[in-house]
């Protein structure tokens, strides 16, 4: 039971973070170029 609750929480957090990731624009390349973060794919 406790195991399932932990797994449930982990999955919910993963879903929230994944949504956040895509809402931010996805990978660094798509975000544009922030000189402080120096995304490597900035062209």
């Amino acid at each position, binding site marked *: 039971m406790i195991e399932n609750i932990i797994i449930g929480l982990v999955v919910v957090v993963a*879903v929230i973070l994944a949504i956040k990731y895509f809402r931010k*624009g*996805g*990978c660094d*390349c*798509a975000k*544009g170029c922030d000189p402080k973060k120096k995304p490597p*794919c900035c*062209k």
Partner: protein
Amino acid sequence: MKEKQLTVGLAGNPNSGKSTIFNALTGSNQHTGNYPGVTIEKKYGHKKHNDYSITFVDLPGTYSLSAYSDDEIIARDFIIKDKPDLIVDVIDASNLERNLYLFTQIRELNIPIVIALNMVDILETKGLSANVKKLSDLLGLPVIPIVGNKGTGINDLLDTITQTGWLEHTAAHPLAKVDYGTDIANEISKLEELIQKEPSLAEYPKTWLSIKLLDNDPIAIKIAAQTLSGAKILDQNEKSRNHIKEHFGESAEAKIAEYRYGFASSVTKTAIEKLDKKKIDITPIIDRVVLNRFLGLPIFAAVMFLIFAFTFTVSTPLVDLFEQFFELCGTFFTNVIPEGQIQSLVVDGLIGGVGGVLSFFPLVLFMFFAIAFFEDSGYMARAAFVMDKIMNKFGLHGKSFLPMMISTNGCAVPGIMATRTLDSKRDRLVTMFVSPFMICGAKLPIFVLFVGAFFAEHQSTVMFLMYVLSVCIALTAAKILTKTVLKGEPAHFVMELPPYHIPTLKGILLKMWERGWMYIKKAGTIIVLLTIILWAGFRYPATDEDPNLSPDENAAVQIEHSYLGSLSTVIEPLVKPIGIDGQKTIALIAGLAAKEVVVSTLGTLYSLGEVDPEDEEATSPLKEKLANDPDWSPLKAIVFLIFCLIYPPCVVAVTVFYRETGSKIKWLLLLVLGNTTAAWIISFLVFRLGTLLKIGV
């Protein structure tokens, strides 16, 4: 003492070494390349020097400040609207005349300029030298000789930028400008007078706007048309243009360009001197071979093959080591964590999935190393030249090769963005459609996994053939698009071939690490998250174990009855005709989020299917599990890879595609539905033909 602020724009021709100087000035690691079009967006960097806090802005490389391509508009909008304190015009000394053409236009924007005269060493290899003092006197502004890739002259440049009172000095010493002759100058004055009277045009330098109107610049015309006195200004412009045409017998834009080139040419003749001793210039010698009409293409193919042969030969032992490491991790956590869902999440989900992706990290690193070597040497620009003829036959522009190469070297996202360097909208659209067909860094592990599993004996050759296939698919798609929805002829291809130089080890390692780090970062973030979600999808709802079945059989029942298992049953009829079974389709669907997830999903799926830790098979590398699975065959593996090549790119690339195509739904639908349909049809044909001919079944 309070720091003074300065904003400095870095302008210059493509491949003049702007990004290299930007990196040297700011200590950034922006991507540089020995080919034009590396910078397609503004980039910011900071530097403190002599009590000044300087913000440097790296602008896209342009040959002029017209309004023909997005990168030119970005550069000139920055100068006009953001009003930097000064512009550092990076000039390639070995191509002074052409580079000064851009200078003549920046000059008209009435902004202080410092010339960074780059690549003076290359000029010397041509037996020439630049008389810096003479050039500075002629242009009426500071000229700093620089060798960007060695960092020579960077401090002098910073000193000049922050020199006390130099802005005032510039104001007191008017800069040299192009003499357009009495007739054109009179017409410019007439327009200037009208522009001066229009308050809404106050932000634009009046001489620049007048010349741009005479130049028939569409954006300048639009700016003028939107004002209250727009009709009057445009009417005068029409009269002035007609007058110039009648007087000179050629259009105003041609005459203006002629005067600008005349200025650039006379400055070049005066400032460039011949050296007594000429160094040997290797560039024309190598070019005679690599650009030879018969040898060019075979050499390019050989270079690509060499990249794969090198990558596989060097990385295989390391990939094996990584795989063994993740096997050990799997065994360790199986023994440490009590049996149950958490153990399964860690071992089957995270180690089986993410470990599967990370195992290929050494291969990705070596691949990037090899590509960076050829990129920095100057060869890749030649590759675009060699490919131009073929590209043209398929309706693509020669420059399209570069975005395709950027997609191959790293990611389709910067590849799509790099199409901004293409002047024609049609060429841009076609290139945006075909760039995602290339095997990007994220698709690479899928290909390496399947090639390693089913064609272990000939990995380099099969990988090379897969790359050739990706190019063929991209070319065919371009041909279909240009014969149907994007009809028209590609614009003429003019591209500068940079001189060859031996790449620095630091430069290559830096690039290799930057791209490699991106791979790790992605594996450690979004791929972990998606793997957890997909693992749960295959693991829930949990079914009760049947004591009459073996652990493996129970695991298979669990997957079949899970959420994703049920979904795969629904999809199965669609993918069965192309030889892919339903559960594996989940990997393809998950791959739409990020292509590496195809590998991690297969890793999780196979780990879940083999639950007995005593069974050696359970902890073996994923490629062995695939090779030993009777559901797979070499033919099915090829069909799976072909499907991966053609079906829509990841969601981030699709979003960027949508944005870059001007948010047009029709292009988005064509990309998503068109690619899915094409992927299915081609996979179906290959599978049926292979089955019929009994090839790889």
